[in-house]
């Protein structure tokens, strides 16, 4: 079907897009513009905010304390995205090359976690990782087994098992975020790989390229739109993650969203919270703008 410019059929365009546009305007742009206005305000008393046009909130938001928390959040989100990409790519490949019979089931396996509330999934993971959790119990059991084997062969037993700290630290936050965001990476990768013309891979292999070379020189470039979509769709929510660092993090695992949340609740400082939120939104806009700048080059590659 040929693509049609919206101006050629304005009635059809408006019929289809009026509802989502109105929705976005009413429930996204209007409320967000209030928050945007708050970010130029100051607290007067306990509940009143005076929109005075002050830039103090942004000045405070760019102090090193908050900038460092932003940078830390970005680093965590970037690490999560890289791990998701490394883990997700083989999964997406496996999905693409799975037989017709198995593919729906494998896809279901990726989708299934979406049907469970994020909170429940996070608590399940926490039960697994706790000091007395199943992960530690299994490790302790293996350790005892190894110790028993050593004694069996007449050697000194291993020292007593000390539970590993798997929860309430930065490791747990990264693990939790990867766990939550992996499907966001796999699905766009899968949709890109699935559309890929398999005969190109066959041609590459026939003409003497090895498997790895085919992967790097043929599959990866063709899957690039999927990779970029996956990176964006993983990086942006991970940057704003709030629940996972709150529940699974330790004493130094706060991310920027946790700081923003506290401004709206405990600190009762909505103008500053609004300014921090908008700094985060601007950062995300920049990421999205960078992605759209890449588009022409991708067109050439085709």
């Amino acid at each position, binding site marked *: 079907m040929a693509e049609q410019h919206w101006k050629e059929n304005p009635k059809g365009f408006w019929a289809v897009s009026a509802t989502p546009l109105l929705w976005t305007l009413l429930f996204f742009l209007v409320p967000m513009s209030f928050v945007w206005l708050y970010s130029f305000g100051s607290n007067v008393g*306990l509940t009143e905010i005076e929109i005075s046009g002050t830039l103090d909130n942004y000045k405070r938001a760019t102090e090193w304390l908050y900038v460092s928390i932003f940078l830390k959040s970005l680093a965590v989100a970037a690490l999560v995205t890289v791990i998701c990409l490394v883990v997700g790519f083989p999964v997406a490949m496996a999905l693409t090359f799975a037989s017709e019979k198995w593919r729906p089931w494998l896809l279901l396996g990726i989708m299934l976690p979406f049907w469970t509330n994020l909170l429940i999934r996070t*608590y399940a993971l926490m039960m697994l990782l706790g000091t007395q959790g199943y992960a530690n119990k299994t490790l302790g059991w293996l350790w005892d087994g190894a110790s028993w084997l050593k004694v069996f062969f007449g050697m000194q037993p291993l020292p007593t098992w000390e539970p590993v700290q798997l929860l309430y630290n930065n490791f747990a936050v990264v693990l939790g975020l990867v766990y939550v965001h992996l499907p966001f990476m796999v699905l766009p990768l899968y949709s890109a790989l699935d559309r890929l013309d398999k005969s190109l891979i066959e041609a590459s292999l026939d003409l003497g390229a090895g498997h790895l070379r085919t992967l790097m020189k043929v599959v990866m470039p063709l899957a690039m739109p999927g990779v970029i979509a996956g990176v964006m769709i993983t990086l942006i929510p991970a940057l704003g993650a709030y629940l996972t660092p709150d529940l699974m993090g330790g*004493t130094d695992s*706060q991310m920027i969203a946790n700081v923003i949340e506290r401004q709206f609740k*405990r600190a009762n*400082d909505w103008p500053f919270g609004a300014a921090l939120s908008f700094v985060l939104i601007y950062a995300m806009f920049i990421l999205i703008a960078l992605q759209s700048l890449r588009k022409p080059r991708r067109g050439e590659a085709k």
Partner: protein
Amino acid sequence: MSKLDLTGSRLGRRSLLQGMGVAAIGITVTGLGACTKEAGETASTGEEAKLNFYNWDTYIGETTLDDFKDAAGISVKMDLFDSNDVLFAKFRAGNPGYDVIVPSNDFVERMIQAGMLAELDHAQIPNLKNVDPGFIDVDYDPGRKFSMPYTWLTLGIGYRKSKVPTPPDSWKVLFDSDEYKGRIAVLSEAGDMFRLHAKYMGKSVNEITPDDIKAIEAMMIKQKPFIKKFHEDDGQDLLLKGDVDLVLEYNGDIAQAMVEDDDIGFVIPKEGSQLNSDNLCIPRDAPHPKNAHAFINYLLDAEAGKKITETILYPTPNAAAKALMPEDYKSNPVIFPPADVLAKCEYAKFNPELQPLYEEAFTRVRAA
């Protein structure tokens, strides 16, 4: 008793998050039931036979709401909140439709100042006579114009007896020592943390200066590597699961945990601690103010108060209800700490100037 078995333990008053999934189902069912049966009915108060109650989790008797419905014909729809800040944030833009809310003492003060509470008509609350006179004329609401006492509570150290050989007697073990490194969890509530550190330094919780905040911040940063978690008032769960051996928690939460696990102890340190009190209030523009008065009056009834106390195990300011409770509750030193210990505990006043300083200092501690 609340029996949500997600974590193998009961939920405390403020650990709402864990309960939310299941609780939401429970509330929806109750809410729907109420809608179909009670539509259009009028209560003896002359108002529609409905009441919207905004309460903490695990903070009401098992049958209290049903009993009230049998007694007064008013069906109660209960929603749950997990922190005073959430309560306050919800009411900032006006009352979202609640009749009775349960803010803590400092938030009673704050909500009075913000004009969010309606004055109570004592003539409609005759059961006020059941309340211990010591809880009537309080600093945060002199003469009880806006609030009725529901429970009181105090912060202390909950610990696992088998892992902590000598019962701690000072805040030092939590705030200023590596003796139990990696086995400590403290509150994530900045204000409470700074006030208790002030107690440890021998100061009143209401006499903190910006210089003290700096000193306390330095102490917190020094202690941070030894702390495992700033918990969201679910310390009793961390203790029960064995993730930590010492927690800063409320006495009622630890009393609930001790019912399940007799290896758990509780102590209020010798430096003294902070008292809190949760209060029944009617927010301004409540849709059913007469029902709200009737409900508050019912909760202050001796028999109803006894049933609530049996479930939640918090100290009750309701003298008539306390008199009906068994001896093992009345003489429980965790629930009712000895008088000489209580003498060193104080209520914190709401201080709008210091609150943002606490928050920013605590953000620095977390980022350090």
